[in-house]
């Protein structure tokens, strides 16, 4: 068997313990990792061999669960998907930007979860049909209209990347609005009007200035920016119908 190559990795990790610290500080660690390793491997090695008090979230180690998002050298990334060999020198690891720190690299996702609920991210059928009438069928074309947007893993990297969310925390934000679009585009759904009560407000799509950082950092290639721009167009058409066309619905 060939020997796996190893490398010495230096990490600068933001530490914060709410019980003892008044403010967060950086702590430097040095570990030896496999050349092919990712940042999460280095953190796990630190926790196992050097400092068991280091806190961070992770689960799947394969970019599916979306729980290991953190700022790596200032960029929001999944630490299980960020290779050590792509970095030189000290790698700076911080908790996801724009979210309150709970402890070390663990942030509180409550704001995002609350916003996700507000856009009603589930199918609201026109009329419920009994199971005896069979399934809701969909053609491949109908599926393709929303499939890309259904790939979101709720990792919140887009919130950490979005300058608008950083400036205005009321903003519903990229992932939650994209979920609204995903259900609006679903042929089985009839809930767009209900979602518009959140989507078409200032805190909804209209806080977005199309910076596009959300789509750049998305590890699932969801492209939230495109979802938001499409909703701006439909919301604008709604506005014209409501305000400029006589007899248009209010």
């Amino acid at each position: 068997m060939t020997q796996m190559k190893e490398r010495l990795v230096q990490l600068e990790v933001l530490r914060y313990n709410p019980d003892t610290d008044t403010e967060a500080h950086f702590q430097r660690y040095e570990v030896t990792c496999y050349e092919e390793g990712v940042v999460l491997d280095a953190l796990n090695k630190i926790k196992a061999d050097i400092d068991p008090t280091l806190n961070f979230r992770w689960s799947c180690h394969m970019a599916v669960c979306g729980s290991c998002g953190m700022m790596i050298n200032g960029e929001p990334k999944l630490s299980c998907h960020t290779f050590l060999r792509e970095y030189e020198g000290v790698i700076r690891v911080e908790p996801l930007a724009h979210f309150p720190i709970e402890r070390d690299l663990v942030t509180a996702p409550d704001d995002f979860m609350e916003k996700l609920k507000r856009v009603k991210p589930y199918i609201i059928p026109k009329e419920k049909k009994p199971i005896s009438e069979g399934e809701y069928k969909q053609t491949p074309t109908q599926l393709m209209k929303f499939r890309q947007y259904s790939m979101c893993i709720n990792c919140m990297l887009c919130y950490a990347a979005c300058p608008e969310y950083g400036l205005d925390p009321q903003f519903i934000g990229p992932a939650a609005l994209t979920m609204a679009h995903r259900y609006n585009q679903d042929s089985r759904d009839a809930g767009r009007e209900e979602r518009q009560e959140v989507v078409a407000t200032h805190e909804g799509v209209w806080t977005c200035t199309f910076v596009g950082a959300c789509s750049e950092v998305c590890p699932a290639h969801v492209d939230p920016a495109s979802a938001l721009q499409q909703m701006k167009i439909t919301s604008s058409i709604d506005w014209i119908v409501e305000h400029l066309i006589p007899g248009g619905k209010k």
Partner: protein
Amino acid sequence: MAKSHKPVVWFPFAAGGTVIAFFIPVIVVLTFLAALGHIPAGLSYERMHALAGNGLGKLIIFGVVALSLWSSAHRLRCTCYDFGVRADTLVATVLYVVAIVGSLLSAMYLLQI
């Protein structure tokens, strides 16, 4: 939460963005060519003057100028906001007034031709 009236400023912005994407690069290239003395026969002064003299021509030129100005004003407003300039009402008023004045001026000049 009340629905936003942002579409009033966003729709002309989006239309202007489309117009800019299609027309402005061509206009920049043609202006450079003209500055270097290469004016394509189809774009001679006489023909351009005739276009600006025609009613439909005036409307097209006005559309390109006004929508591009509005789009640029709105983009600049968003950029200011992104950079943390929080005086949004002031920024928006100044930029939109510039766009409206520019559009009115272009309408005035076009009507004089």
